[in-house]
């Protein structure tokens, strides 16, 4: 049993245990939280072992029967982000979820979903990739519709389910098409296939199928609903890793198909441009904080796509590394934003047993009553807007550098477009910050309840990470650079 295999298997084994831990003693559902933390801790140990092994001997293959699982740079990066966010969310959810019906299921599903994403990152053949993807999707259905007694959560759940299911059927059709033409499903063998119309069609099916999960415009419509109605911890995971896991699945697949058509890069760049502008404009007049953050995820997916598109189109390694870097920093910043917004939501509404949405107006004066949560949310949104010295700036910088390194006029114009989009995004991030530092509190803030310590600690942890990476971007280059070179290797560049 190698550490890498254990890392993939552990969450799946421990998820039912987490459930039973909370179930065994009905009065203490919190046991499942402790069990979840324990399994995440073990996963961290295994992750460190796998990472050291990887740094010494390169990609690690482990085989069970016909299935091959491979830990390479991309899997390590996604695993790191998944484990970081899952750990923070589990710590954070202590009070947020306390007393909710089915608390033990929540933790069990979080662990299962994390496990599915780690598996997805390691899958080495197409069908296996789809299975992990489907497992992740199903566990996220249950988490999005976690408040199944509430109409809005149900509505979001139904939409998410139907759209995701359509997406995953399209992926499956792509798999079938590839299987029919090449007779193989292994990603590395796929790269050797010759050019054919069917394979290009399959690639298109993957772009759209995974695109639903990645929230490419116009397949994005589930995202704002699901992000805003899920419990805040789940919004964090959805925005921070689930949609990115879809992106990584897409990169794996079209990376393997890169040899047969040049158009993937163009397609990614086109979606990048559309997503950036659309997400920003949709967020511009948004009044609900969590919906606003959800739309900003659209535009950040655009930045990642820009990086990856540059790598696909021009073969610039910095584009791939920058894309992965942005994936990581976006996970941290958006995670921080959702957790901080969730903490405020908890203090202003949930602690009063109200399930109103957190609006921009509610935030007025939060800076005085909740200094830490307000500061965290400010750091998060300003970082998302790309202001230095916060993490978001550094990852955007790497992507932009890649664009100019190509010396290609279209790519340079796209970079300028992306930079102007960052400016546009400040037009909705900045007012949020302004609201929080008003003198006169909103009525919600006046009646607000205190935010529990466990939430505050997670906010501090994530905020420190966001600032630290912003000051020292080289802190995480051991994750982003190998991920970038793994992608470049798959592209055959």
């Amino acid at each position, binding site marked *: 049993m190698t550490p890498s295999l254990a890392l993939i298997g552990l969450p799946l084994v421990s998820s039912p245990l987490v459930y039973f831990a909370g179930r065994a003693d009905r009065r203490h559902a919190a046991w499942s939280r402790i069990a979840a933390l324990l399994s995440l801790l073990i996963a961290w140990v295994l992750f460190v072992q796998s990472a050291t092994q990887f740094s010494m001997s390169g990609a690690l293959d482990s085989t069970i029967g016909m299935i091959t699982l491979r830990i390479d740079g991309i899997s390590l990066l996604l695993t790191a982000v998944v484990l970081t966010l899952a750990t923070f969310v589990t710590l954070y959810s202590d009070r947020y979820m306390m007393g909710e019906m089915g608390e033990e299921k929540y933790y069990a599903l979080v662990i299962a979903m994390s496990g599915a994403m780690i598996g997805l990152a390691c899958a080495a053949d197409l*069908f296996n990739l789809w*299975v992990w993807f*489907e*497992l992740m*999707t*199903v566990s996220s*259905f*249950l988490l999005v*519709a976690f408040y*199944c*007694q*509430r*109409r*809005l959560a*149900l*509505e*979001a*759940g*139904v*939409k998410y*389910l*139907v759209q995701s*299911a*359509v997406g995953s*059927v399209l992926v*499956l*059709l792509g*798999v*079938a*098409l590839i*299987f*029919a*033409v*090449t*007779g193989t499903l292994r990603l590395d063998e796929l790269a050797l296939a010759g050019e054919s119309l069917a394979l290009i069609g399959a690639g298109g099916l993957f772009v759209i199928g995974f695109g639903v999960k990645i929230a490419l415009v116009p397949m994005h419509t589930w995202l*704002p*609903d699901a992000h*805003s*109605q899920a419990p805040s911890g789940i919004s964090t995971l959805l925005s921070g890793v689930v949609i990115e896991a879809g992106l990584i699945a897409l990169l794996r697949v079209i990376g393997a198909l890169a040899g047969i058509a040049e158009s993937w890069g163009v397609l990614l760049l086109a979606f990048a441009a559309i997503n950036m502008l659309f997400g920003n404009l949709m967020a511009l007049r*948004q009044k609900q904080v969590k919906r606003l953050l959800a739309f900003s995820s659209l535009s950040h997916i655009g930045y990642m796509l820009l990086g990856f598109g540059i790598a696909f189109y021009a073969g610039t390694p910095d584009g791939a590394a920058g894309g992965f870097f942005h994936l990581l920093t976006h996970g941290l910043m958006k995670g921080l934003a959702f957790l901080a917004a969730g903490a405020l939501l908890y203090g202003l509404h949930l602690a009063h047993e109200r399930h109103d949405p957190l609006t921009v107006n509610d935030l007025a004066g939060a800076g005085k009553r909740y200094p830490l949560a307000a500061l965290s949310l400010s750091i998060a949104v300003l970082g998302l807007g790309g202001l230095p010295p916060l993490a978001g700036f550094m990852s955007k910088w790497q992507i932009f550098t890649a664009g100019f390194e190509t010396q290609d006029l279209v790519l340079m114009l796209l970079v300028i477009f992306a930079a102007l989009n960052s400016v546009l995004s400040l037009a909705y991030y900045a007012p949020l910050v302004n609201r929080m530092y008003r003198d006169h509190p909103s009525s919600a803030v006046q009646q607000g309840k205190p935010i529990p310590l466990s939430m505050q600690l997670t906010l501090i942890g994530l905020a420190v990470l966001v600032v630290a990476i912003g000051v020292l971007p080289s802190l995480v280059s051991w994750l982003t650079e190998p991920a970038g070179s793994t992608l470049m290797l798959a592209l055959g560049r």
Partner: protein
Amino acid sequence: MTGTILVIGVLALIGVGLYGMMILHNVLKLVVALQILTKAAALALVAAGYMNGQLQLGQSLALTVIVADTMVAVVGLALAVQVRRHFGTLDTRALSTLKR
């Protein structure tokens, strides 16, 4: 010949499924349309196996798909039950509070 029929069948199922999802308003009917769509994919896998001579592999993949898609259907139906309970209807047009 068999291959052509299979392909036509897959395409027909996809068409019916997608069309249904675009026009139906009932959550239960949507789940049924989703099932038709998924069965198109399962059939496609079997057809793919048939065409490249790995029918057994294709069939086992299709079986896995059916298992996985049952999970989706179960969750979907569970949501449908809750929708009926809380909205008093299964019409998705009632589920349009979240917009803009």
